[in-house]
């Protein structure tokens, strides 16, 4: 029963969504919207479980004095402090979400810069990854290096100064060999999705119910 009911729901829902794609009628659209409206509702309730998980994991770390347990305070304090500051703290004492408030200050001048810092690390990581990828250790790696040099020079003004064929060749590499490879991957992905969906809808793939079977 624990497995049959979810499998039945998936079977009916899956077939309904497949058929719905071919029916533009308003009844079909209403059913589709009704189904999709459930997603944010379920997600909101699942978030409570998520916060519970985060609290449990870090509370255990603090209680056990596990390695680096001090960092757990850095998770738990802002996790509960920010909603308090935004929703409960009196406006006369800097509460609320709108500027000027402590919440707004912490969001704008702590959270956003930290996130931007993480994102900006990408530039350095791309440089180090490119260094590893473009080492001409074999014939294929040399082809990759040459293609990369042409594409990169084709994108910047100095490429055109070196030769007017640089941007054209760069664009050709992007438009033809690169796009052909991308489309081949996307085609495989499309069939993979189709097969995975069919396996789930018809109960061949049941791992999402928990467990891997025999």
């Amino acid at each position, binding site marked *: 029963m624990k497995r049959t009911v979810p499998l039945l729901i998936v079977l009916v829902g899956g077939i309904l969504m497949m058929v719905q*794609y*071919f*029916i*533009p*009628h*308003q*009844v*079909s659209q209403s059913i589709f919207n009704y189904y999709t409206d459930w997603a944010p509702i379920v*997600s909101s309730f*699942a*978030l*409570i*479980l*998520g*916060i*519970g*998980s*985060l*609290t*449990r*994991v870090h*509370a*255990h770390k603090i209680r056990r004095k596990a*390695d680096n347990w001090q*960092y757990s305070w850095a998770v738990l304090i802002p996790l*509960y402090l920010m909603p*308090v500051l935004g*929703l*409960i703290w009196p406006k006369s004492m800097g509460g609320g979400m709108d500027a000027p408030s402590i919440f707004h200050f912490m969001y704008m001048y702590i959270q956003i810069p*930290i*996130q931007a810092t*993480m994102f900006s690390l*990408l530039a350095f*990581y*791309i440089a*180090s*990854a*490119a260094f*590893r990828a473009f080492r001409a250790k074999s014939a294929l790696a040399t082809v990759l290096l040459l293609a990369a040099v042409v594409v990169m020079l084709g994108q910047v003004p100095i490429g055109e100064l070196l030769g007017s064929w640089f941007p054209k060749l760069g664009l050709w590499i992007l438009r033809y060999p690169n796009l052909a490879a*991308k489309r081949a*991957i996307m*085609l*495989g*992905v499309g*069939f*993979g*999705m*189709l*097969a*995975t969906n*069919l396996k789930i809808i018809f109960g*061949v*793939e049941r*791992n*999402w*119910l*928990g*467990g*891997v*079977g025999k």
Partner: protein
Amino acid sequence: MRNCWIGVPVLGIVFLLTSLSWAQQSDAVDRDMSVPPDEVTEKPVADDVALQPVAERIPVEPSRGLAPPGAIMVKNKENDAGDQLVVSFELPADTTGIFAYRIYRRVSGEKDWDLVKVVAAGEPTEFIDGYDPEFPVMPGTLYEYRIASVDPEGNEYFGEIQVAQETPHGEWYHTGKTKVLIACAIFMGLIFFYFNRAQRGVKMYLRPIAGIEAIDEAIGRATEMGKPVLYVPGLSDIADVATIASLTILGRVAKKVAEYQTPLMVPNRDPIVYTVAEESVKQAYLEAGRPDAYDPDSVFFLTTSQFAFVAGVNGIMMREKPATNFYLGMFWAESLLLAETGSLSGAIQIAGTDAVTQLPFFITTCDYTLIGEELYAASAYLGQEPKQIGALKGQDACKAIIITFITAALAFGVLDLLFKSDLVEWLSNFLASPIVE
């Protein structure tokens, strides 16, 4: 006590909502109290003066001046939900001095008009009515239209009120998707055909995929080193097929990990994915015969914020030094941040994603990468169940059909260039025509 931790955020949320409601009530009382009684002003209300919509000022009789447009043709739009109409109108015989045309619409029998479209002079006189969500077209409703020629000063010169020839209605089949339906039927038929073949015990060859074969080796390495295995099931939600594929692999990885008694860490970005992953891992430990070895803290939710999640996972990598990292699922800009940090920490890394733009990052930084469809195939490879393998062969058959179509289109395209035959041109165009009209 461990299971009671869920109560903390629930209580927190209840407390927050109560406080918020109380704060809002207090604010309302404060606002009421802050206005002295003598400053309370009443809005002037005149019983006989009601606001009239601008459109109501449309004269009933056609004005003289610029020539108004002619006949209005209204047709039901095909293949829609019955919420759109195709409207076209005849231009006046003399268009001199016309700056634009304003199209008004009302429900037949009602009084008020809505301005639904402005067409500049010289632009196409056919448009689809119903795009503007402010003035939706309702299925089964009879509408009336009226069009005005507008001069540069904004003066309107109206034509006759005309009743729509058709009412909007939705269709029960999208005729533009017939090719998709045929293709789906063929592909589903092939997959089911191979399901059956596999079930009948027909042996099928599977090409070895290095990344999948390395999974056991990677878990074994972590066991030997006595270090944990880190599994990131992507950053997308449960509606993403890549996430579902990742969760099916997680179940198999968790079973192996349970058999080897190696610690497992599964950080999650999406709360629903977290609940499914937790259930999957718990069940895998149960099936491995080691339910006692399951650690409830091994599968955990981190944050929904993309870069905060990266910071959290990178921190785990640098502190806990897992011996094996799995990144399987959907990834965006964080792919390189995760994989490069994992590389720096010295872990063996296996990645897999269907995000084409992230594949190069994983290929350069990880030891093994499952490219695109290999991610979906991994579960079948690991499980070796006949039906799963049958589905893989069905996919291959589908790809063979597509390759045949592409090759034939290419060949006919070249032949068309060389011989200029009508038949070859038709075949070439047919093969290259889009599947969705």
